[in-house]
C-alpha cells in the first residue's frame, strides 16, 4: 500500500470538493486553492519518477495498493504504476498545473465550477493510468468524461454544445462496448484484475481462443480507437478541440487522447496478442492514413486551433503505428511520443489560447507580423513549433526517430510513408508560423501586448521540458525498458529486435 500514489490520485478530488465549499463571491480564493492543490499534487508526483526502481527485473507495478473494494463480483481497488504509466501520471499532474494557470484570467464566469471540474478531471485521468483492475479502469475512464463534457460545454466557444455532446456520445459508445468485454472477461477469468488475468494466461489456466480474442479485441479497440482518435473515428476531435476552452484543449490533447493509446498498449496487446497480430496490418494502414490525411488537412486550415487539432490526428497516428509494430524500440518511441505530444501540443494550445486572449480570434488571416509587437511570444512559439516538427535536440525528434527505427525493421514501406509526415508537419507548421508571426503587422495588431510573467512561467516550464526530454531521454527511456519488454513478451515480439541497453563500460547520466 503506497500512500504516495493514493495521495497523488485523490488530492485533486479532495481539492475539488473543498472548492465546492468556498463561497462563490471569492473567485481569488478558489483560484488559489485550485493552484495549491494541483501544485502539491505535482510536487508529490515527482518522487514517483525518482524513486521508481528500474532494472531488468523491475517490471511489476510499483507504488501499488491492492485491496478488495466490492464483493460479488469481486472488484479490487488495485492501483500502481510501471514504466509505461509512470510518466503519463506525471504529464497529467504537470499539465493540470499549467491549465489552472492559463485559466487564471481567461475564465471569469462560473469560476468555482470550472476549477471543480478541472481537478476532478485530474483525478479521473490519473486513475485511468494507475488502475490495474479492469473495472476500476472503466470507472475512471468514464469519470473523465463528465468533467470534460462540462468543460467544453460551459466554457467553450460558439458551437460548444454540439462539440460537447458529440464528444460524449462518441466516447460513450466505444466505452460501453468495452464494458461488455470487461464483464465477459470476468465470467471467463473470475477476476477483473489485469495482473491476475495475465498471470492466469501465463500459467495456462485459461487461455482465450482466437475467436474470443478477436471479438474482445474489437470491443476494447472500439473504446480506444475512438479516444486516440484513429482515422476514421477522429471526427469528434477537431470539434472538441476548437470549441473547448484553452485548459480543456490542453487536457484533451495532452492527456485524454493518451488514454486511448495507453489502453491499446496496456490491455489490447498483451491480453489479446493473437488478435492484435492478426489485425495489426489494417490498424497500421488506418494509422498511416491518419498520419497523412491529418497532415494534409492541417495544411489547409484557416483556424489555428483546428490546424493543431488535425496535427494531433497525425501525431497520434504515429503513436499507434509504433505500438502495432511490436518492436520494443518503436513501442518505447510510442510511449515517449505520447509524452512529447502532450507537452508540445499542450504548449501549442496554451500559446493559441494566449493569442486568443489578446486578439479574440483564432483565424490565421487576422494575424501576421505578431513577432514585432510580441518577440517573447514569437520565440517561445518558434521553439514549440520546432519541437513539434521534430528538430533534433528537442523532444519529438527522439520519439519519432525511435518509432521510425522500429517500424523500419518491420516493413520499410510503412516507415517510408510515415516519414512523409515528418516532412509534411514541417511544411504546415512552418507555413503557419510564417503567416502568424512574420511579415507586416497590421494596424489592428500594433498594440499586441507581449507575454506577462505568469504566461512566461507557464511556457518556460514547457519549453524547458522539451529541451530536457530532447537531450536527456535516457532518464525516461531507462524506466520504460523493463515494462515494455515484459509487455511485448506477453504480446509476442517479432524476431528482429534492437536491444536498447547501454553498451557495457559506458554510463548514461
Amino acid at each position, binding site marked *: 500500500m503506497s500512500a504516495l500514489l493514493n495521495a497523488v490520485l485523490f488530492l485533486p478530488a479532495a481539492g475539488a470538493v473543498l472548492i465546492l465549499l468556498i463561497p462563490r463571491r471569492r473567485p481569488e480564493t478558489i483560484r488559489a486553492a485550485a493552484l495549491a492543490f494541483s501544485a502539491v499534487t505535482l510536487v508529490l508526483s515527482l518522487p514517483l519518477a525518482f524513486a521508481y526502481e528500474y532494472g531488468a527485473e523491475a517490471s511489476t507495478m510499483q507504488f501499488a495498493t491492492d485491496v478488495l473494494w466490492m464483493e460479488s463480483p469481486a472488484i479490487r481497488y488495485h492501483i500502481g504504476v510501471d514504466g509505461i504509466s509512470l510518466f503519463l501520471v506525471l504529464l497529467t499532474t504537470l499539465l493540470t498545473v499549467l491549465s489552472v494557470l492559463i485559466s487564471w484570467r481567461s475564465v471569469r464566469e462560473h469560476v468555482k465550477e470550472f476549477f471543480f471540474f478541472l481537478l476532478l478531471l485530474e483525478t479521473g485521468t490519473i486513475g485511468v493510468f494507475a488502475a490495474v483492475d479492469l473495472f476500476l479502469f472503466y470507472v475512471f475512464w468514464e469519470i473523465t*468524461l463528465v468533467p470534460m463534457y462540462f468543460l467544453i460545454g460551459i466554457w467553450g466557444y460558439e458551437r460548444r454544445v454540439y462539440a460537447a*455532446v458529440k464528444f460524449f456520445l462518441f466516447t460513450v459508445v466505444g466505452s460501453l462496448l468495452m*464494458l461488455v468485454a470487461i464483464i465477459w472477461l470476468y465470467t471467463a477469468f473470475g477476476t477483473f484484475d489485469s495482473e491476475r488475468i495475465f498471470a492466469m494466461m501465463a500459467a495456462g489456466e485459461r487461455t482465450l481462443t482466437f475467436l474470443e480474442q478477436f471479438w474482445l479485441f474489437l470491443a476494447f479497440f472500439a473504446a480506444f480507437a475512438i479516444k486516440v482518435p484513429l482515422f476514421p473515428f477522429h471526427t469528434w476531435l477537431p470539434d472538441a478541440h476548437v470549441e473547448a476552452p484553452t485548459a480543456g484543449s490542453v487536457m484533451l490533447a495532452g492527456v485524454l487522447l493518451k488514454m486511448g493509446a495507453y489502453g491499446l498498449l496496456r490491455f489490447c496487446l498483451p491480453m489479446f496478442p493473437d488478435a492484435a497480430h492478426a489485425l495489426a496490418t489494417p490498424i497500421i494502414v488506418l494509422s498511416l492514413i491518419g498520419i497523412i490525411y491529418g497532415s494534409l488537412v492541417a495544411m489547409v486550415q484557416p483556424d489555428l486551433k483546428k490546424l493543431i487539432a488535425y496535427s494531433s490526428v497525425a501525431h497520434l497516428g504515429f503513436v499507434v503505428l509504433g505500438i502495432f509494430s511490436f518492436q520494443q524500440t518503436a513501442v518505447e518511441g510510442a510511449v515517449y511520443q505520447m509524452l512529447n505530444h502532450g507537452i508540445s501540443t499542450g504548449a501549442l494550445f496554451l500559446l493559441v489560447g494566449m493569442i486568443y486572449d489578446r486578439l479574440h480570434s483564432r483565424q490565421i488571416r487576422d494575424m501576421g507580423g505578431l513577432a514585432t509587437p510580441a518577440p517573447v511570444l514569437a520565440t517561445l512559439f518558434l521553439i514549440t513549433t520546432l519541437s513539434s516538427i521534430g528538430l533534433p535536440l528537442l523532444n519529438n525528434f527522439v520519439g519519432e526517430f525511435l518509432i521510425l527505427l522500429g517500424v523500419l525493421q518491420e516493413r520499410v514501406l510503412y516507415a517510408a510513408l510515415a516519414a512523409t509526415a515528418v516532412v509534411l508537419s514541417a511544411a504546415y507548421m512552418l507555413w503557419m508560423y510564417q503567416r502568424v508571426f512574420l511579415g507586416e503587422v497590421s494596424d489592428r495588431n500594433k498594440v499586441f501586448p507581449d507575454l506577462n510573467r505568469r504566461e512566461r512561467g507557464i511556457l518556460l516550464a514547457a519549453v524547458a521540458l522539451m529541451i530536457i526530454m530532447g537531450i536527456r531521454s535516457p532518464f525516461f527511456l531507462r524506466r520504460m525498458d523493463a515494462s515494455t519488454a515484459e509487455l511485448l513478451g506477453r504480446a509476442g515480439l517479432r524476431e528482429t529486435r534492437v536491444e536498447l541497453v547501454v553498451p557495457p563500460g559506458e554510463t548514461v547520466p
Partner: protein
Amino acid sequence: MPTRELISVLPEAILTLAATAVMLLAAFLRARREAWCAGVALFGLAAAMISLLWQTPPQPPAFNDMIRVDPFSMFFHLLFLGTAVLIVLSSASYLRRERLPAGEFYALLLFATAGMGLMAASNDLVLGFIGLEISSLSSYVLAGFRRHVATSSESALKYFLLGSFATAFLLYGIALMYGAMGTTRITTIQAILRGGLNPITAQNLAGEALAGSAVLEPVAAQAGRSVPAALLALSIGLIFVGLAFKISAAPFQVWTPDVYQGAPTPVTAFLSTGAKAAAFALFLRIFFVALDSALYPWPALIWACGVLSMFVGNLAALWQSNLKRLLAYSSIAHAGYMLVAFTANSADGVAAVMFYLVAYTLMNLGAFVVVTHLGNQGERYVEVTDYAALGYRSPLLAGCLSIFLLSLIGIPLTAGFLGKFYAFRAAVQADLIGLVVLAVLNSAIASYYYLRILVTMYMSPAEREVPIEPASAALRWVLGLCAAGTLLLGFWPRPVLAFAISAAQWLQGTR
C-alpha cells in the same frame, strides 16, 4: 387466527389502520391543519417498517401457504415503505400549492402500499391479483387527483380503462392456470410442473384408490405429463401480458406517457417507482418460481419484450420536450434493462433486478421531486426549456438533478451504473451477449436525451424568467437522501446487494 399468521400480514394491517385513521382525521380536522395527516401517515409507515422486525427470521407459510414471509418479501416491503415515506415527505408542499385534500391523498397512498406489500408476499396467484387490484384502484384515483384539470382526469380514465383491461387478462390467465393445474399456489404449480401430482387428479386418484378400481402406479407416473400444455401456454401468455402492462414494458406501454404526464407529479413518481417495483415482485415470484424455463421457454418472451422496451422507450424519449413525458419514456427503457437481467433466469439475475429497482427508485424519485418542485402552481413549468440556466439560478437543485441524470445515464460511482453493471453481468453469465450489446447500445442512445437536460441546465441562457420557490425542509431532506443514496450505492453497494442476493437465493431455493 394464530399470532404467526397475524405477524405475516402485520405491515399491511398497520398500513390499513393508519390509512383509515388518516381518512377519519382528515374529515374532522380543519383544512389548515392537514400537516397532521402527513404525520399520521408517516407514523403508520414507520410502524409498518418496525413491524418487519417481527418477521425477521423467515416465517413458516401462513394462511394455508398463501403468504410467504421471506427475505424476498422483506426486501420489497422495505423498498415500498421507503418509497412511500419519500413520496409523503415530498408531496406535502405540492398538495398545499395545488390545494388538494391531503388526507385522502395519503390514505390512498397507504392503501396502495399495503396492496403492493401483499403482491410481494403472495404465494398465490389470486392473492397476488387481489394485492394488484388494491394498489391499482388506489393508483387510478391518485392519477386523477387533480380532478379539475382535464389532463389529470384523462390520465385517470386512460389508466383505469387500460389497466382494467390488463388485469382482466391477468385474471383470465389465472383462471386458465387453475384449469390446467387445479391450483393457484405458486409453489404447487412448480411442483406439478416438475412431475408432482395435480391436486384434483390426486383427489380423484385417492377416491378411486379407495374404491379400489384403479392401479395407482402408472397414473402417478403419468401425472407430470398430464398437464394440458396448450392451456398452460395460453395461461402463461395471458399472465405475462397483464404483468408486462403493469411494469410498462413494450409493446404494452402505450398508456405510460399519457398517464405519467397527466397524473400529479408525486403520483407519477409513485407509479414509476413503487408500482413498477411491486409488479416486478409479482412477476419474479410467478415466473422465476413457478415456471420451469426448461419446459416453457418464457425467457425468450422476456428477451423480446426487453429489447422492444429499450428501443421504444429510448427512441421515443429522444423527441420529448415535456420532462414528465420524457421520464415516462425513460421509465419504459429502464424496465427494459431490468428485463435484460430477468432474461438471465438465474439468482444473479433476480438479484440484479432487485438492486436495479432500488437504484432506479432512488434516482427516478429524486428526479421527479425536482420536477415537482420546479413545476410550480398548476405544473406550469415542466418543459425542458424551463430548466434553462437552472445550474446557476439554483445550483443545489440543479446539482441534485445532475446526479440523478448521470445515474440514469449510468456513469460510474452512481447507483444507476452498478444497477446496469449487475444486470449486464447476469445476462453475460447466461450467455446473452447479443442482448447485452443491444442494451449497451441503448444506454448510449439514452445518454443523449439525459444530456440534453444537462445542456439546458448548464449551457443555455434562460429564455424566460421561471420563478423558483425556495424548497421546503422536507423537500430538501428527500432530495438529499435520494442524492446521497444514489452516490453511496454507487460506491458501496454491499448492504443492498447482499440483501438482494440472499433474497434471490431464497427464492431460488423455493423452486
